[in-house]
């Protein structure tokens, strides 16, 4: 073996070592009078873990506060073991955190953990999502009445619906202000929250009631207002429905959630 094959083998061996797997790389590293080949390689293996932990810690500060150092370190160790990085930009390394916390024991026995991770990753997504134009209310005024049925909405890419079964947003809010979090409890009414970024680049969030959640979910899927009217009939009478739909649309525009109207 020579040339590029030899280089490839060396890189694969090196990476196995860094990942803590079986590896032959030690034989290809020179020792020094004071440091063995293994000691020298361990500098890289240690740095690998530290770097990934630093990335995860930056992305999940509140989850870290909630769990404390020791438990959070367990989460990070588990994450790193399950997700060797397959991404280029470290910014996106920790995007599977919610999935890990939802599926892996013992974390999945505490649903608040996955919910806190969802909140934090949603803020991160919102923070650096695409810059798009913002729809103004007068664009709505310019619309002909018969256009309503076929109206479809385009949203800012920051707009995300977060399904939360617990008072996780209150817990998140308290912890991010360095306050004692409230007792954890299952939410009584609002299970869904919307989080998005306004034109001033600040992210906002608020709860959604059942009807607005249904309407917003359909609108985000690109459904027309005819479909949204239909869905709202589960919540309101035929007379109330059009007014409700219009008021949702107006508030989404006022809150700068929309990037375009098409009809």
């Amino acid at each position, binding site marked *: 073996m020579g040339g590029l094959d030899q280089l490839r083998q060396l*890189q694969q061996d090196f990476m196995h070592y860094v990942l803590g797997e079986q590896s032959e790389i030690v034989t290809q*590293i020179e020792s020094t009078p004071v440091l063995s080949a293994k000691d020298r390689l361990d500098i890289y293996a240690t740095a*690998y873990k530290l770097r990934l932990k630093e990335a995860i810690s930056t992305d999940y500060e509140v989850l870290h506060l909630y769990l404390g150092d020791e438990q959070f370190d367990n989460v990070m160790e588990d994450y790193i073991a399950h997700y060797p990085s397959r991404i*280029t*930009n470290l910014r996106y390394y920790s995007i599977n955190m919610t999935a890990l916390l939802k599926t892996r024991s013992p974390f999945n026995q505490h649903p608040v953990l996955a919910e806190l991770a969802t909140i934090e990753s949603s803020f991160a997504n919102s923070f*650096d999502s*695409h810059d798009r134009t913002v729809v103004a209310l007068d664009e709505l005024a310019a619309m002909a009445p018969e256009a309503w049925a076929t109206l479809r909405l385009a949203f800012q890419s920051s707009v995300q619906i977060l399904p939360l079964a617990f008072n996780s947003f209150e817990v998140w809010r308290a912890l991010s202000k360095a306050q004692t979090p409230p007792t954890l409890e299952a939410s009584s009414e609002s299970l869904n929250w919307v989080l998005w970024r306004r034109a001033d*680049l600040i992210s906002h969030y608020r709860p959604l009631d059942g009807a607005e959640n249904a309407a917003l979910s359909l609108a985000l899927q690109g459904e027309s207002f005819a479909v949204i009217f239909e869905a709202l009939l589960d919540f309101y009478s035929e007379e109330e429905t059009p007014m409700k739909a219009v008021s949702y649309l107006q508030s989404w525009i006022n809150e700068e959630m929309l990037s375009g109207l098409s009809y």
Partner: protein
Amino acid sequence: MSRPFLGFGLGLRTDHYQHVIEHRPQVDWFEIISENYMVPGGKPLANLDKIRADYPMVMHGVSMSIGSTDPLNQGYLEKLKGLIERVEPLWVSDHLCWTHVDQVNSHDLLPLPYDEATINHLADRISQVQDFLGRPILIENLSSYVSYTQSEMPEWAFVSEIVKRSGCYLLLDINNIFVSAHNHHFKPETYIDAIPSERVMQFHLAGHSYNGDMIIDTHDHDVCDPVWALYEYALRRFGAVSTMIERDDNIPPFTELRAELAIAEAIAAKTLTEQQLEISGRALLRGAA
């Protein structure tokens, strides 16, 4: 490109955005970490645009993985090209290293063996990147903690040969030379003496940490005296080279970092002539390379 001299710059860090935007401190230029702005939008890019309006910039990446035996990451290169169009940097750099193999990423700057096959591989890959970007790139020497039995030559010979064959330029990290010299037992001056002067486009300066017998390139301290001395040595050898300080951890207030940069200015002022230190014309300062 003949060597433009940009003067003395700093690495742009999020901790300093507000200070830079509000006070517009006197700094000749900023170096940005490309990956920090390879995101769809929002504040990172808004701040970047604001600061770019007031300062010349160069782009410095950590993810090109030019030495990997995986295929070049085309998605990354396309994003990089998009950012280059937005920023119009004076130049673009990355490291003489590999970061991933079999699509698994170490997110680290891993050293290469110094042999003929690796030189060919690197020269070829750098040429491909330069063709794609439509401009020469700068590559930076690493701090390293291992050496391979496979290596056939010293690092400086390896670096010089790649530069010669690919037509790329060098971002010479003075601290990395110092760190690697200590870790691999060579004289840092030997390294500097062997580098082709006309290819050196930029210097990095940084602080480091001792970890037992190894020096680790941590960028969490002030630049130390032996590195300042080596900087002076490099100036004597190469003449005026655009110089910046990298600080990535334990980041002090902007004014402290700016004061540290003044040490570099003072060393250059006593080592070189005023004529040598004349900053290249303003006309050069947007997308010149």
